[in-house]
């Protein structure tokens, strides 16, 4: 039973498009589709990874956000310098809740903000001397850092500073990797290019130069790739893999270290969670070191069991047995969660608009709770993401790419889902409209949501939001009669 019929969904798209001027209408039309799971390829029905149109509100980020905020930022024992004006670093500081263990400011630097604080004179005369000085200063103040990455902000690219030359010199002087990352915000159409640039710098400056040759391997070594440990996600994934007998030697990059990255080319298999942000490095390691990679999904018990079995399928019988044991061990817990929350959540409708892997990965978790996802979309997905999404979503559901505020608001007011999951920019708009909302970029300050432990927290949070009595009291008492 679907909440939407094909005609109704197509009607919704037509309605929302009629608000646009003609040229914009043609462009936006390509980004909205009604799903048909029998399709093999998305590119004939949906266009993605295109420049956002001027005049519409987009929720996208920039290349700097993709590199500093997503890929490099969580590497905890390196200092990530936001090279440019102070704002980019300060407003993105610690917002993504990439948890880690360590002493902040001593041997880990995840939640700190390092910036070169560009002033007018640095833009006029160039910031290279300042950069060299800052690197020396950071090395003096924080001697336990394992390396430095220089994350360029827009002005650095605009004035043409040669950060590569400075970092090369500094790297030799301090004897640690200093990585220049050319992730100026104006590059590309969204944060997606930042992921790619960051992946390429890891390849060029870490994997090509800094391999850990002494690391002793085992036949069960795996790396978790593309898990950023938001609210502890990577930890609740890691224990499942370890319980089934695998040895997790690296986490990329949530709670990850430089040493872990250096030894990753020695693993037997890369387990890829966020396909969008780290498929590049996985493909590189596959072609250069012959390490196969496998996409898994640790949201919701159905997908977890499926993924654990599929991962085990690449290893010997010991691991296969281990996987079955893990699934059996957690089954009572899953049953208890379902017994408690399924009756309260059954049949509720959800709409999602997030980034990376979640628009398709979390669908299974909602379905496990008896809920139905009626619309989903990516901020910065590419064709290959939509290929995978079409199969996950039901028939006649809405799929929207880089959806504008106008479109999403229209869809939500017309469909009236029981829950909307999107980012902080949407959160208060929908809550004020009286629609239960969760901020699904950093799990609304909760988490973890990965793994079996995460499923229990996820179910509790969804129930807490959907069945909250406050949504009935959105109207002022004197207007109620």
């Amino acid at each position, binding site marked *: 039973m679907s909440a939407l019929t094909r005609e109704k969904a197509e009607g919704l798209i037509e309605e929302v498009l009629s608000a646009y001027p003609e040229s914009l209408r043609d462009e936006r039309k390509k980004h909205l589709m009604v799903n048909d799971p029998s399709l*093999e*390829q998305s590119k004939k029905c949906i266009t993605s990874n295109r420049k956002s149109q001027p005049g519409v509100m987009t929720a996208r980020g920039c290349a700097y956000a993709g590199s500093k905020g997503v890929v490099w930022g969580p590497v905890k024992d390196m200092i990530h310098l936001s090279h440019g004006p102070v704002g980019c670093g300060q407003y993105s500081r610690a917002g993504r809740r990439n948890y880690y263990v360590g002493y902040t400011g001593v041997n880990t630097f995840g939640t700190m903000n390092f910036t070169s604080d560009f002033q007018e004179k640095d833009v006029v005369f160039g910031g290279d001397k300042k950069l060299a000085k800052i690197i020396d200063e950071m090395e003096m103040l924080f001697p336990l850092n394992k390396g430095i990455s220089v994350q360029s902000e827009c002005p650095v690219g605009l004035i043409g500073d040669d950060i590569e030359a400075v970092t090369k010199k500094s790297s030799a002087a301090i004897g640690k990797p200093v990585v220049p990352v050319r992730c100026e915000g104006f590059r590309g159409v969204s944060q997606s290019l930042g992921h790619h640039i960051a992946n390429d710098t890891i390849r060029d400056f870490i994997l090509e130069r800094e391999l850990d040759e002494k690391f002793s391997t085992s036949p069960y070594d795996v790396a978790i790739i593309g898990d950023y440990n938001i609210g502890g996600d990577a930890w609740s994934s890691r224990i499942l893999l370890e319980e089934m007998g695998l040895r997790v030697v690296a986490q990329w990059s949530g709670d990850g270290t430089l040493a872990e990255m250096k030894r990753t080319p020695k693993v037997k298999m890369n387990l890829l969670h966020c396909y969008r942000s780290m498929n590049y490095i996985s493909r590189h390691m596959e*072609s250069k070191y012959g390490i196969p990679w496998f996409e898994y999904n640790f949201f919701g018990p159905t997908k977890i069991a499926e993924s654990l079995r599929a991962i085990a399928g690449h290893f010997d019988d010991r691991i296969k047995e281990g996987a079955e044991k893990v699934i059996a061990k957690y089954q009572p817990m899953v049953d208890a969660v379902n017994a408690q929350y399924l009756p309260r959540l059954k049949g509720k409708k959800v709409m999602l608009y997030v980034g990376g892997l979640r628009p398709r990965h979390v669908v299974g978790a909602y379905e496990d709770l008896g809920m139905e996802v009626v619309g989903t979309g990516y901020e910065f997905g590419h064709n*290959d993401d939509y290929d995978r999404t079409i199969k996950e979503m039901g028939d006649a559901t809405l799929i929207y790419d880089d959806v504008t505020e106008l479109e999403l608001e229209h869809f939500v007011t017309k469909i009236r889902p029981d829950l909307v999951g999107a980012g902080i920019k949407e959160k208060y708009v929908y809550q004020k409209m009286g629609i239960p909302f969760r901020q699904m970029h950093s799990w609304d300050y909760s988490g973890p949501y990965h793994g079996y432990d995460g499923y229990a927290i996820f179910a509790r949070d969804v129930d807490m939001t959907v069945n909250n009595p406050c949504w009935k009291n959105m109207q002022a008492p004197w207007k109620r009669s």
Partner: protein
Amino acid sequence: MPKVILRRQGDGSLTCYVPKKDLEGKVASLEFNEDDRWGGRMVLEDGTALFIEPMKAPPIFPVEMRVSRG
């Protein structure tokens, strides 16, 4: 001359990834797929045709190569 990555899936089929286009597609047909001759015209599932310069032996997968339009 797009650069592509060819990899063998678990079930033995080939997939072709075109990084510039984010196109990931199964290889529907390959002209020469023998031990002593490999390459030629390759058609992806969605109809995209590419041409691989025929080689003497199949490469070791995954492999990154330049191909031309078929």
